[in-house]
């Protein structure tokens, strides 16, 4: 594996000079035959991969309007060229969103458009050779599907859709990525991405109850598979034991405890994450989402709440209603089966930040903001929350609600530089199924823009805590912060701050 090096922070945020092929050696491990076949993909690269790939591309442009329009509409204006964190961190021109798209668009032109068939050179059309296929594997695995480029595209072209299509095609010809596909196998087999079986989960939760009892003296419960609970909490499995994730899980539990809301986790659906999104596979995504539906029906819950996880919130907010009928407003029998059980006085599904913020506004929680006074906090918007979902009733609630919550529990709060937050936020560098060790060099380099704005507020305002609401962001930053000279413990969840400030049993 290549050396892992962090690029120097830039004094002025100007785009880097082009370094062709700078990241041509970066690629994740290929999924093994067993992993591929476990989730219904060919085990190894099939003999007629070229024809199969082209056929799959034809199928996908027929199934997804977005993909078809995005492959046609680009004019190479260059608006996106300096927007990708991986380009800014590596200088590899194929990490410019438009150039990444062109890897597929060239093949699309060659096979699906008249000029591409007649004058391939003129319009940049290309045959799908093994080299091009390998480029797909390398560079579509250098896109975290964060959609920052889509904010700036005059036509809203979303590279994430192209990357997902590429991964879908690669999977269908037996050229899948190990990290994502192994995890998808685990979630089907065991119920969560980390492969944590039911009994281990139960043990972990009991341990947490003891820890919280020792710390606060309160009997905060972490219920599992409780039928008739009001709330089903679906959270990323990293929350069960990874640091700093678990501190947010403790925060959620304290909030439920303080507000007197009965809740439960589910061993059948012990994972909010849905890596089916990362590989663009509708059926995988649907099957994974169906676990939540099944658990909700079995436990008879009235509300479904999602923990701190960026891509999971995208899937929950934007896709659950479509995929599994989890939401409101449906009149078909499939969706009604669950929706008639849910309480539509609440948003379905609800983000944990929405739930906690509603309680704060109602005065239902006792908060001691001074408890967080040792922290100077900033907030990192996670890409999928920022650009692919919402909280609350108004556009932009996904920015305002977590910030309002942070301000409600901490006195010292600082924003990072405009242009690096809200809808223009930079990906942590580890999203989209790239959170794997063999891609560490890419992940470190991709974190550059975020590290620059963090360095600014750390130097100027003494920021020592970056709050975020995504399991991948937390894991990624914990790993890459030291490469930029930061303490790895300075990243944590919003509910970690809530957990510090909340006073239990004080208000009766």
């Amino acid at each position, binding site marked *: 594996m290549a050396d892992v090096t962090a690029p120097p922070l830039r004094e002025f945020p100007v785009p880097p000079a*082009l370094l062709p092929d700078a990241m041509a050696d970066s690629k994740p491990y290929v999924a093994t035959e067993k992993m591929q076949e476990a989730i219904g993909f060919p085990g190894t690269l099939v003999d007629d991969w070229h024809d199969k790939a082209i056929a799959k591309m034809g199928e996908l442009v027929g199934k997804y309007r977005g993909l078809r329009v995005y492959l046609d509409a680009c004019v190479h204006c260059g608006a996106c060229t300096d927007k990708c964190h991986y380009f800014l961190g590596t200088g590899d021109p194929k990490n410019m969103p438009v150039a990444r798209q062109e890897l597929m668009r060239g093949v699309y032109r060659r096979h699906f458009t008249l000029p591409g068939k007649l004058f391939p050179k*003129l*319009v940049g059309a290309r045959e799908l050779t093994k080299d091009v296929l390998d480029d797909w594997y390398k560079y579509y695995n250098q896109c975290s599907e964060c959609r920052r480029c889509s904010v700036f595209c*005059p036509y809203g072209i979303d590279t994430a859709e192209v990357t997902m299509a590429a991964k879908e095609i690669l999977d269908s010809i037996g050229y899948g990525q190990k990290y994502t596909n192994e995890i998808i196998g685990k979630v089907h087999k065991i119920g969560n991405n980390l492969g944590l079986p039911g009994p281990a989960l139960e043990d972990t939760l009991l341990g947490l109850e003891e820890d919280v009892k020792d710390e606060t003296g309160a009997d905060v419960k972490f219920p599992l598979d409780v039928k008739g609970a009001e709330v089903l909490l679906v959270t990323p499995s990293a929350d069960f034991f990874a640091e700093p994730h678990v501190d947010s899980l403790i925060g959620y539990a304290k909030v439920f405890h303080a507000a007197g809301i009965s809740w439960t986790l589910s061993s059948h659906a012990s994972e909010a994450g849905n890596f089916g999104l990362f590989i663009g596979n509708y059926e995988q995504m649907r099957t994974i989402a169906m676990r939540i539906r099944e658990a909700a029906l079995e436990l008879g819950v009235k509300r479904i709440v999602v923990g701190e996880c960026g891509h999971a919130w995208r899937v929950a907010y934007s896709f659950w*209603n*479509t995929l599994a009928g989890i939401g409101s407003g449906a009149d078909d029998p499939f969706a009604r089966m669950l929706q008639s059980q849910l309480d539509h006085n609440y948003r379905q599904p609800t983000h944990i930040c929405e739930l906690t913020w509603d309680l704060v506004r109602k005065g239902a929680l006792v908060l001691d903001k001074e408890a967080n006074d040792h922290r100077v906090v900033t907030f990192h918007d996670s890409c999928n929350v920022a650009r692919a979902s919402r909280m609350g009733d108004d556009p932009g609630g996904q920015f305002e609600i977590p910030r309002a919550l942070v301000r409600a529990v901490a006195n010292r709060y600082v924003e990072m530089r405009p242009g690096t937050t809200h809808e223009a936020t930079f990906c942590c560098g580890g999203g989209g199924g790239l959170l794997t060790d063999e891609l560490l060099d890419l992940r470190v380099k991709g974190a550059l823009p975020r590290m620059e704005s963090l360095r600014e507020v750390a130097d100027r305002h003494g920021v020592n805590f970056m709050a975020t609401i995504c399991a991948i962001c937390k894991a990624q930053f914990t790993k890459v912060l030291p490469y930029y000279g930061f303490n790895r413990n300075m990243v944590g969840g919003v509910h970690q701050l809530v957990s510090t400030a909340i006073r239990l049993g004080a208000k009766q």
Partner: protein
Amino acid sequence: MAAFFAGLFYLAATVLVAGLAVRIRQYAGTPAPLKIPTTPAPTTRGGVALRLVREVVLFESLFKATLWTWLFGWVFHAALALVLLRHLRYFTEPVWGWVAFIQPFGVYAGFAMLAGLAGLWARRFLVDRVRYISTPSDHLMLALLVAIGASGLAMKYVAHTDVIAVKSFFLGLMSFEVRHLPADPILALHLGLVAALMLVFPFSKLLHAPGLFFSPGRNQVDDPRERRHLAEWAARLDTK
């Protein structure tokens, strides 16, 4: 010459209209199974219409992206729109009042259009990132538009052509009648290039024009929790 251009323009108009119709039907007929608007997004249909108007009229996203490209791009498109409207005088008799009114502005717009194109073209040479992504067809498209604009202005300022005859020719075409067209090389160049532009439109990146209206990133309402959004092929999975 008149017969040649008559045939060419009937062909070009047919290809343009039919080609675009096929494309638009293809876009409209392709399902969008998932809600993928780039958020924050409007929560109502009216809001989405406004978002699209802002994109079409102001190039809002491009403005956020890069000021230079926005400036050149917006000036070019706005000027092109004005120039096109100005040309309505060749197809209407009597000329509509507002078309007569914009005539002088349309002339300036011709220069503004060329200036915008020059700026856009310069970026393809001067900015290394844009140079990297430019294909020969990107340059050709700019050359085509510059040549159309330059030949048009040349007829205004360098070598006048008999515009009365040109108008008569196009009015004739509109009633399926081939009339006299001045045998003027600059005019022939101008008309030939315009026909070429019409011919390539439905097969090229000029599809960005209809594409914007079908882009789910921009045209979807942000209401997935309130409404179940289901494509036909996806709905079939529910009953399996």
